[in-house]
């Protein structure tokens, strides 16, 4: 823990933490992707951990062939580079995924969630970019996208619309 935090009074620390929570609540009032969940109200603001997802991307770039113990290919440089740009667009929109994983079919995937609803973005080693929208019950939909910034912004907008749509 930094020295300055150790030197703060207990009351000061409580006030500081409370301020962080208020700021966080304000941010999510505008970005209501996971409304209603307990974890949502205590999540760390995306801007306070700007390197987290890039670090994850770097980890994925180090995977070896057969990383799943079967015969999965690691994510190739092209989808990794595209995913980095997509991450930048997410940050620009103050959004962040729930998970970022390699996929056993070759490539990597971002998942965004709100309750049972899921938006899954897959950057494939084949060069394709697909988005799947699913609530786990009704038929899923899949759409193919180009890999450029306008398409990423379109994806982000579609995710927000889908995840925040009326669930009834």
């Amino acid at each position, binding site marked *: 823990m930094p020295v300055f935090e150790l030197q703060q009074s207990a009351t000061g620390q409580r006030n500081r933490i409370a301020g962080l929570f208020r700021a966080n609540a304000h941010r999510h009032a505008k970005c209501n992707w996971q409304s209603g969940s307990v974890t949502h109200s205590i999540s760390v603001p995306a801007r306070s951990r700007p390197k987290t997802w890039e670090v994850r991307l770097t980890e994925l770039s180090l995977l070896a062939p057969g990383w*799943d113990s079967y015969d999965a290919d690691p994510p190739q440089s092209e989808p990794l580079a595209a995913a980095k740009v997509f991450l930048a667009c997410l940050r620009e929109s103050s959004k962040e995924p729930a998970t970022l994983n390699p996929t*056993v079919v070759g490539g990597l995937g971002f998942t965004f969630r709100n309750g049972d609803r899921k938006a899954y973005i897959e950057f494939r080693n084949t060069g394709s970019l697909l988005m799947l929208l699913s609530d786990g019950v009704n038929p899923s939909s899949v759409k193919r996208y180009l890999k450029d910034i306008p398409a990423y912004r379109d994806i982000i907008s579609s995710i927000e619309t889908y995840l925040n749509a009326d669930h009834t």
Partner: protein
Amino acid sequence: MPTIPSAMKSAGRFCDPLFLADETLFRRVPTRLWDTADKPPIEAIDLPDISVGRSKYGHPEWVRHDAVNGKHFDKWGVIGIVVSAIPNPFANNGVALEFSCVHDPLENDYPHTEIRMFDGGEHLDRLDGISEEMHLLWRESALREVRILLRPRQKCRDREECPLSHIVAEIPQV
């Protein structure tokens, strides 16, 4: 590393092509993909030619053994799908795929099986055999049918004997 249970080895047994509808197929999932209490992610669902174990001749924890490479993944989760729950046939945009379970015993892994994909009777063993949209839709459909048999980091001791039934028995606690 735990040794492979002797009952897991083929020991001269022939393949058994008969799969019952309520037989379960097992697959291990790396902790780098699934390491939480949540459901396994879609990134873990493979296609085509999915390597699995089968409940008629093996236990879920046995697939934590990588019999090909001589490794054991004691922290990896294990998921299962019942044969009748495999999305099969699977149709999309006028294309209908069929899936078949093929027992493919290995010397150190008798339960080893492959879920294979066919189009008009032709075995498709490459991703370029179908559209990527259909590929992703099938994986999502399969994910909905997946059951969690061993959670990531769930401790379990290997059973040494073959299963008494193809119905998955309770996992023995350590």
